[in-house]
């Protein structure tokens, strides 16, 4: 009886030792790879185990080794050295398991061989926890597509349940590429984003979280398999989608049919024809325009065409007459300013020019004069017209200016013009100018003032344009550009076409077709 009991106890002990040994062996094997330390230590359960590899081919007598440990300045304590043969790597290790491991204090472990210190290490036991893997790993189908529920139990520990961290690894069956999820404290996890109807392998391992306790990752658990539910299209959803699609189609069809004319017009527009402008041209007269015209002479459309066929009359105010045969006079509308101008000219005219001007002109002579003027721009500058202290509006087209390199004083800022002039003269030449606006070079009237050009030059511009110095007595004028033939007729006048508004004398231009442009004061001038 006692023998039987002893046998049972012995077998049980063996079983315990072997399992413990298995655990130890696996852990030792795992830690052997760590080359950082000569003595490798870990805590299993509540006890610290330190091991070291056998050095060389020795007699394998573990008696020669002495293992001591101490802490908190206490005296050294000895530990019994044991040996372990690793079957996998065919190595032998010596180890010692401390009987009473003090935690949270610095331990000093030393290995002596024949009274000679071999290894020494100082460590805190709570930093080298090597836990067993989690238990009871289960993988279940949650019922939802692409999801699996994983749960496990922590290794049997005291005081550490809330300071553990887990790692879950999962991979499709047959594949080695797995994903890893880290989870703290909690012992269950839902895997998301998996393929439907697939078999997955799941592993779990555990480690202390590193705040109070630190350690190594435990070994992976044995893989557990789980199958994700098959993905299916909910029939209700399919039906609904089809139904909605059908309704949308019908709606769009209805819309298209109801507005098909409009859509057709937008997508396939009619080529516009001018038929509506010519009532009856194509229908009655079969395209015969002349006939149609003759029939429709009284229409408004016909009249307007008629009007534009003529040349617009262009009013022109002549300031000085060159005693032409009435061409200038016929066009002159204001006598008074012209006379005024004449008087002024006679006062301060240069004899040369005025003489020239007073000669009875004819076209040929005039052209010669023009040519002479072109050749001698300086002479022109001394002309009476220019030297007169009347206010002149010298206008020129902006384009023309660029042709000439000479600085037309119009382009000079107004201030310089004013400064060159004498102060007194500003006041004298004040005629009753109204809202005369002064151009500032680009053909625009910019300010309202009377001013004078004492020594301005009037460089000749290209042919085709003429300038006219205008002493404006407040009359708004509108000149149209003149052709060269007209210039020849009018003589050497510089003609300005300017549009500027003058509120005072709006009635002076009772012309049809003339437009008194207001506000802008843009003057377009033509110059010789």
């Amino acid at each position, binding site marked *: 009886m006692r023998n039987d009991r002893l046998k049972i106890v012995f077998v049980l002990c063996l079983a315990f030792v072997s399992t413990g040994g298995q655990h130890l062996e696996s852990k030792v094997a795992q830690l052997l790879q760590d080359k950082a330390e000569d003595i490798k230590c870990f805590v299993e359960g509540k006890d610290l185990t330190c091991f070291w590899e056998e050095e060389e081919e020795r007699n394998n007598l573990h008696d020669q080794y002495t293992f001591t440990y101490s802490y908190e*300045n206490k005296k050294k304590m000895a530990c019994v050295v044991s040996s372990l043969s690793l079957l996998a790597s065919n190595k032998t290790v010596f180890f010692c398991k401390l009987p009473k491991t003090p935690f*949270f*204090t610095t331990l000093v472990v030393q290995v002596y061989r024949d009274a000679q210190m071999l290894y020494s290490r100082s460590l805190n036991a709570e930093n080298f926890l090597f836990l067993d893997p989690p238990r009871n790993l289960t993988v279940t189908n949650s019922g939802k597509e692409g999801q699996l529920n994983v749960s496990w139990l922590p290794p049997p520990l005291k005081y550490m349940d*809330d*300071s553990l961290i887990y790692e879950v690894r999962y991979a499709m069956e047959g594949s080695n590429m797995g994903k890893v999820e880290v989870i703290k404290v909690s012992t269950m996890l839902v895997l998301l984003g998996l393929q439907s109807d697939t078999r997955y392998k799941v592993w779990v391992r555990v480690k202390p979280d590193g705040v109070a306790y630190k350690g190594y990752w435990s070994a992976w658990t044995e893989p557990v398999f789980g199958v994700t539910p098959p993905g299916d299209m909910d029939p209700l959803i399919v039906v609904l989608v089809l139904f909605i699609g059908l309704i949308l189609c019908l709606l769009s069809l209805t819309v298209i049919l109801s507005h098909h004319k409009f859509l057709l017009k937008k997508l396939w527009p009619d080529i516009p024809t001018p038929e509506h402008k010519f009532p009856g041209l194509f229908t009655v007269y079969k395209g015969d325009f002349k006939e149609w015209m003759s029939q429709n002479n009284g229409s408004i459309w016909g009249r307007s065409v008629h009007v534009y066929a003529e040349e617009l009359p262009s009013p022109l105010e002549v300031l000085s007459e060159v005693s032409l045969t009435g061409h200038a006079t016929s066009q002159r509308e204001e006598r008074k300013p012209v006379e005024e101008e004449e008087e002024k000219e006679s006062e301060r005219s240069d004899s040369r020019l005025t003489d020239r001007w007073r000669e009875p002109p004819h076209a040929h002579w005039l052209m010669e004069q023009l040519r002479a003027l072109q050749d001698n721009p300086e002479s022109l500058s001394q002309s009476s017209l220019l030297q007169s202290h009347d206010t002149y509006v010298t206008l020129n087209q902006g384009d023309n200016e660029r042709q000439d390199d000479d600085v037309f004083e119009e382009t000079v800022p107004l201030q310089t013009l004013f400064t060159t002039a004498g102060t007194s003269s500003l006041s004298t030449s004040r005629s009753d100018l109204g809202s005369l606006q002064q151009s500032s070079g680009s053909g625009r009237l910019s300010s309202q003032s009377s001013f004078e050009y004492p020594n301005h030059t009037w460089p000749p511009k290209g042919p085709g344009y003429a300038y006219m110095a205008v002493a404006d007595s407040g009359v708004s004028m509108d000149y149209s550009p003149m052709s060269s033939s007209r210039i020849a007729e009018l003589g050497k006048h510089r003609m300005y076409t300017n549009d500027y508004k003058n509120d005072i004398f709006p009635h002076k231009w009772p012309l049809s077709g003339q437009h008194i442009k207001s506000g802008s004061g843009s003057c377009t001038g033509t110059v010789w």
Partner: protein
Amino acid sequence: MGSVAERSKALDLGSSLSGGVGLVSVLMVFVWLGENQVSPLRPICDLRVLDHFVREARDSEVIMRGCRGGCGVMKSYFVPLTSVDFAVWEHTDVHGQAVEVQTGLSLLDQALNNAMKTVSNSPLASALENNISNIHSLGQILHSLDLQQARSTVLPDDSVPASAQTQEVSSLPELLQVQSSFLRGKVRLLLSAAPACQRQNS
């Protein structure tokens, strides 16, 4: 006449007495109410608070390692023993554990204060200040757990008798290591096993 005067006197006395008694009784009622109304402090059982303090103690160690200049002088400090033998610890009763922890915390507090006087490096000084305030908070937490430990007063001066529960360290890095170990070990074990918290969990 005399009887009237006597009677009036008696009445006055009686009325004053009754007034006094009434007042006293009202006060008693208030005191009783007050006593009953005062509920015990809610126990602070979340160990994450302690984990936070542990991390900050570790930060001090890191700062100490990287400190160059003004990092304190070589000085001896009396600090608690930090080693925990689980077998022994489990057999110690909670109150004993609480006393040990309380004593240890006050020792650490004193030692850290002494150390701070010699530190001029500002990051280290602020870390130490942090640790000191954490230790005070831990005292409050222990109080909330109502472990009925004797409230140990902070020892007034440096002349601490070397008791069985103390050890001597000679430098600030060692002191900080002791603080770390103490918090992670004994303090944490006590807090995690405190009866007030167990009652909550179960």
